[in-house]
């Protein structure tokens, strides 16, 4: 068994607070916090301090998404959320059917998955550093998972060239096209495969959603497996769907909300093709959205691209003139 798997199983139990220490500390905190030993918190403040997190529900936020292979900005119109279980299940069945019947280019041994994406991360000004991080990525992924990665940050004018080939075995977290072919092609089988493996989230439901949405977003799944992933998502608690129109094109946003951390993950899926167009992770500290603008299957990596990787060192940032930037 891998050490990282063992590590996940060794998650410490949450310690109990000593009741006496807890009470005394809470009093000391309220006194120290105000800087006046005689000051006492108001009842409202005490209620806020002592109330369980689960009693406070985060505000739901809608986000925009972009169209696969579309140019620049487009108008997004949110349509009221379908939040009944039946409506969510119906939406996911529809996406499952669309994925199953869409005639997508087939990945195979010797082919390369070529993708472009644009991502934007906004860090909260109060809870984080307030930074806005824009990244354009272009990748060529081989059948066995070698990734040629070009990253650009337009706002800062740099570009990097990296080959990701660290021999990490493929998994549901880092699926290669070859690995994706080995996954179960029915919802029950996929769920049975993932249930004992997922870890590292605030809840099992969140971990399952992250795994399934990550697989769908990888664009490596065969049609039947992608269809099964949507059906499996339909069985996860706290999942909602909403209709969005993207430049007149219907899509469905699938969102998982985690109350414990006031965070949400979502993917936006094209109704017609069942393909994931964008993924968003939102927490109190930041919002991160990545939109795929191109996804295609190539027989070979263009020579000009291979030359570019020959000419640039890894982990070095190059400016717009191609000169390396100082650290």
């Amino acid at each position, binding site marked *: 068994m891998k050490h990282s798997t063992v590590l996940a*199983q*060794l*998650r410490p139990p*949450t310690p109990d*607070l000593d009741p006496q220490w807890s009470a005394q500390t809470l009093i000391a905190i309220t006194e*120290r916090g105000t800087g006046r030993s005689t000051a006492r918190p108001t009842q409202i403040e005490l209620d806020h301090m002592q109330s369980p997190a689960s009693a406070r529900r985060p505000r739901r936020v809608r986000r925009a998404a972009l169209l696969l292979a579309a140019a620049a900005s487009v108008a997004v119109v949110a349509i009221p959320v379908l939040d009944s279980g039946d409506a969510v299940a119906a939406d996911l069945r529809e996406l499952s059917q669309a994925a199953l019947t869409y005639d997508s280019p087939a990945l195979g041994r010797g082919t390369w998955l070529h993708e472009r994406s644009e991502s934007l991360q906004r860090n909260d000004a109060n809870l984080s550093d307030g930074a806005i991080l824009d990244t354009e990525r272009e990748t060529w992924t081989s059948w066995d998972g070698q990734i040629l990665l070009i990253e650009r940050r337009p706002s800062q004018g740099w570009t990097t060239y990296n080959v990701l080939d660290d021999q990490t075995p493929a998994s549901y977290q880092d699926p290669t096209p070859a690995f994706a072919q080995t996954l179960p092609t029915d919802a029950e089988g996929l769920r049975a495969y993932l249930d004992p493996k997922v870890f590292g989230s605030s809840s099992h439901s969140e971990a399952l959603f992250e795994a399934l949405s990550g697989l769908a977003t990888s664009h490596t799944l065969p049609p039947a497996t992608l269809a099964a992933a949507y059906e499996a998502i339909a069985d996860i608690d706290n999942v909602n769907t909403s209709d969005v129109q993207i430049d007149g094109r219907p899509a469905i946003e699938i969102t998982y909300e985690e109350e414990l951390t006031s965070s949400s993950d979502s993917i936006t899926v094209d109704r017609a093709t069942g393909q994931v167009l964008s993924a968003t*992770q939102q927490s*109190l*500290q930041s919002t991160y959205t990545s939109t795929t603008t191109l996804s295609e299957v190539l027989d070979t990596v263009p020579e000009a691209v291979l030359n570019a990787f020959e000419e640039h060192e890894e982990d070095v940032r190059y400016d717009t003139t191609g000169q390396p930037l100082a650290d």
Partner: protein
Amino acid sequence: MWQADAPRVLSYARRHVGLNDAPDVVSETFVVAWRRLAQVPEPALPWLIGTARRIIDNTRRSDRRRMALTQRVELLSALAAPGEDNSARHEALQRLAGLREHYREALLLVAWDGLDSAQAAAATGLSAAAFRKRLQRARSVLDGLEPVVHLRLEETTP
């Protein structure tokens, strides 16, 4: 907030400063929260862990205290849940203790503290992409897929 989150902040603090000093970190963390109550998000755990992390960093800078590798193994072993396979448990914790601090932190923020990648990225001041890359590298090193080139004593002496 206290009842719900103090135990988990205590769990985080124990890992970094040991069982004896952890309650002080929890107290300091909630003093900050109390002073900035209007700014504390709901729920507060990711914010509280980020605050505890800064308090611990400041403490370490001020007293230059560092934990030896053997002490780290003992501490992690005391905190971790019992494992069915003792040899696998010991080996995993031994390798974890030998990792560089930023690799160990990335792994445990996710695996033990339950933060997702975006939250852990914000807590560590990294972009989401950079954090995911760090986490991937950390898992690779932990699993022996990359050489442990940093199992050295840089953090063992003042």
